[in-house]
């Protein structure tokens, strides 16, 4: 078993607001992230897959296939978008880094037929990142 990680970067805007909370509660919980005009980040995504090394190719995954899945399922949908309005699941869910990592997992895990998804790591800034290992956590 070996792990391979591919990085990708996308830029997007968002703001934090829950319709189930009052305007005062939204401001108190989310602070300056509640500004309705939004703000943006350069997100850095690390996708780690796990599998056995193919004895003929010496590879765990065809990097071109993985790159195409990331382009189609993540970059085309998230890059240079206003997440609250342009990504369907965030019309009803707050686009925190936590929820983004889960959303990315759900979008790419079913598309990987040749290896298994191990971890989605998403950096919002160099000082803040989230790891998601799927619904059954692996250590």
């Amino acid at each position: 078993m070996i792990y391979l990680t591919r990085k990708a970067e996308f830029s997007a805007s968002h703001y934090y607001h829950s319709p189930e909370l009052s305007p005062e509660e939204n401001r108190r919980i989310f602070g300056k992230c509640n500004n309705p005009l939004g703000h943006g980040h350069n997100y850095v995504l690390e996708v780690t897959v796990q599998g056995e090394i193919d004895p003929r190719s010496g590879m765990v995954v065809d990097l071109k296939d993985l790159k195409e899945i990331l382009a189609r399922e993540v970059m085309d949908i998230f890059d240079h978008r206003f997440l609250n309005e342009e990504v369907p699941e965030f019309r009803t869910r707050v686009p925190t880094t936590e929820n983004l990592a889960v959303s990315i997992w759900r979008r790419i895990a079913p598309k990987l037929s040749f290896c298994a998804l191990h971890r989605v790591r998403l950096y919002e800034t160099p000082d803040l990142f989230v790891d998601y290992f799927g619904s059954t956590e692996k250590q």
Partner: protein
Amino acid sequence: MVHLTRRYMFSASHRLHNPRLADGENSQIYGKCNNPGGHGHNYFLEVTVAGPIDPLTGMVVNLAELDGYVQSAILTPFDQTSLNGQPIFAKLVPTSENLCIEIHRILQEGWKELPSGKKARLQSVRLEETISNFFEYSGDAQ
């Protein structure tokens, strides 16, 4: 279950010296880190929290709350200080291994009093002494 990691920085000095060892042994074991005047580092501290995403807020932990806690429990007491002068290092050599474990212990002590600490747990503490040396501790039970 999601892991969230926040990165912090503090600067401190230390000298690696164990008074139970002879001077020659200290010099042999710790090398230039045994220099009597001490030396300093910019330590990068990564605190990882694990928990479920709150369906209302979309968050594992309130970052302002986590930042405030780490600031008061770790950064304010340690930043711009000499670690050898800290009470916890009165009988403990302030290596980054020991510092990493002490930071984990201090954060764990007040964790349950944090509003976010009831649902999210302290997963691990990772301490970078330099870009080449780092230490990670998840508690004895893990």
